[in-house]
């Protein structure tokens, strides 16, 4: 019924004792996520409402068998935290942190792609598989279990579109926020492949925005590799060139990375692209309602 996070998820939270880390860890746990451990250097032996805290991720993995990590530490410590998670053999690392330097991400990405581990984010809202588990900061009551997969570079827009789809009586298999930074661990293509392989996803909504060429590459991938239908949305038609629109990655450079260019690229290979979130929901309804 889902990808990436589910009932088998055993979550360790890096930065569990911070204010935000603690708040969201407990919300994730309340939703049903199996939170097995937290990590804060120097705080081994403590617990956060019964969740044991360890000094290192490696210790946490040895003691609890954690297979997924959520990173909630500030940008200046986040690179170290991601490498620590990868080094401890964690299968899936989800980095919520916003503001990790681009040079760090180049190194992390290059290292990551030499192995078989998965990184989602950074600068992302996390993942939810409705009814099973959530890892991150998404408002869970927007989502209902169903058969539509959603991939997005933006948090709030994900909630908006999920709610619009939900209002039409359609739920989600999994919703993945891949993050708004110029370099993220998993691209649209990586997640599209997972949804394509998922028996319980009938359609994928891909929510893109200005900047980079991830949507264009996804278009090529969809036309060559996917049987599952995809509906698209792109934000930022009104964005002027050279200006960063909130996300570090949302910037038109020269003439590349425009919303129109992305929309055209997707439509050229037959992917319908909605002009607003409501229309996207209607397109989904028409396809599978």
């Amino acid at each position, binding site marked *: 019924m889902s990808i990436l996070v589910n009932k088998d998820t055993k979550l360790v939270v890096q930065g569990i004792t911070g204010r935000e880390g603690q708040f969201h860890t407990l919300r994730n746990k309340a939703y049903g996520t199996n939170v097995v451990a937290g990590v804060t250097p120097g705080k081994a032996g403590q617990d956060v409402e019964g969740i044991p805290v360890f000094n290192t991720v490696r210790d946490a993995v040895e003691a609890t068998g954690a297979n997924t990590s959520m990173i909630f530490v500030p940008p200046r410590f986040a690179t170290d935290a991601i490498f620590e998670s990868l080094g401890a053999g964690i299968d899936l690392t989800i980095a919520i942190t916003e503001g990790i330097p681009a040079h760090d991400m180049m190194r992390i990405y290059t290292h990551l792609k030499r192995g078989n581990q998965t990184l989602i984010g950074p600068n992302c809202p996390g993942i939810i598989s409705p009814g099973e588990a959530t890892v991150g900061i998404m408002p869970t009551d927007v989502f209902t279990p169903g058969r539509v997969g959603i991939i997005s570079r*933006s948090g*709030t827009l994900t909630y908006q579109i999920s709610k619009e789809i939900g209002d039409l009586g359609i739920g989600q298999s999994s919703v993945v926020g891949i993050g708004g930074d110029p370099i993220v661990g998993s691209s649209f293509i990586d997640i599209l492949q997972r949804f394509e392989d998922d028996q319980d996803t009938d359609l994928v909504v891909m929510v893109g925005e200005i900047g980079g060429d991830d949507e264009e590459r996804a278009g090529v991938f969809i036309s060559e590799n996917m049987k599952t239908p995809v509906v698209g949305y792109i934000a930022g038609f*009104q964005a002027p060139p050279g200006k960063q629109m909130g996300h570090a990655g949302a910037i038109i450079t020269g003439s590349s990375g425009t919303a129109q260019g992305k929309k055209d690229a997707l439509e050229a290979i037959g992917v319908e692209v909605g002009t607003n979130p409501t229309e996207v929901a209607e397109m989904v309804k028409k396809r599978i309602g």
Partner: protein
Amino acid sequence: MDLFEYQGKQLFARHGLAVPSGEVADTPEQAKAAAEAIGGTVVVKAQVQVGGRGKAGGIKLAKTPDEAYAEAKNILGMDIKGHTVKRVWVEAASDIKKEYYASITFDRSAKMPLVMLSAMGGMDIEGVAEEHPDALARLHVDPLIGFQQHDARWLIYHAGIDAPAQKGVLDALMKSYEAFIALEATLIEINPLIWTEDDRVVALDAKVSIDNNALFRHPDLAELQESVTDDPQERMAQERGVTYVKLDGDVGIMGNGAGIVMSSLDVVALAGGKPANFLDAGGGSNAEAVTTALEVLLSDPKVKSLMINIFGGITRCDQVAEGLLAALDKLGATLPIVVRLDGTAAPEGRAILAERAPDNVVIEPTMLAAARRAVELAKEAS
């Protein structure tokens, strides 16, 4: 963060890259003094972050300090493509034998640094790439290995750099990459990188951008950040730490989250209106954040109506509503404000506004309806 040429050159010099000796000047008098100190013929260069300075008359040769004074007087205050020249860079003139091009960019698509080198420098490099693709040597660098001398040699041979200049170009490439890493730059572009009559290789221009996310590790670079915008709202937003971009319409927009704000602009345009700005009040849109955001929006005289689009996730809509009331109380705005609240505690938020908000606050149930209403109200007001 984009740096000015003179800042880039000062950083180059610090990393061992050859640049002409020079000084900054904010007045013609300072330019004259700089020319005297440097000696001989100098070049007076407008410091603006836009291409085409030369064609616009922003780069002039001066044979004497008096000429430097006169040229600086001309150039300071000049408008180059909407940028006012507030500072010039006065540097020793160079005897150019040939102009090359060198750059290191953060290649977002490949997710690694890309080094480019060409023997056809001094011109628009995008044009060179299009018309003479073979003249531009390109090489990606594995960020875990770094840029090695054999990489530099490969580029030099493939770009066709003249034999007597090869050693100098190799040195320039190695030092540029060192600077790229040390400064956590996202761009280092040297156009032209010149081969001089006395066989030196010198950076005659410097375009440097630094990753904003890395500034916490570079307090010295953070200090270089100058406000380059003349726009009053953008300045105000910068000072108060609000994520804001000015556009040229009359519907002011505020939301929580970059994606939903971008989408709001698009929806306003679809409804036949013109967005006045991008403003992301962020996740925790509390009273203070809403007040600050509104202060920026309301200071723009072109704004005729506002659209506030909130999807409450972690943000609670009742808190946003309270924040809005507090802000309006403080600021006393009278223009129409269309509010759309959805998600966490939305019914409570809407109830608070229905009960206590002034008459100019209009509540709409959806993003589309809010956009249409805000556009209508802006048209009525103008």
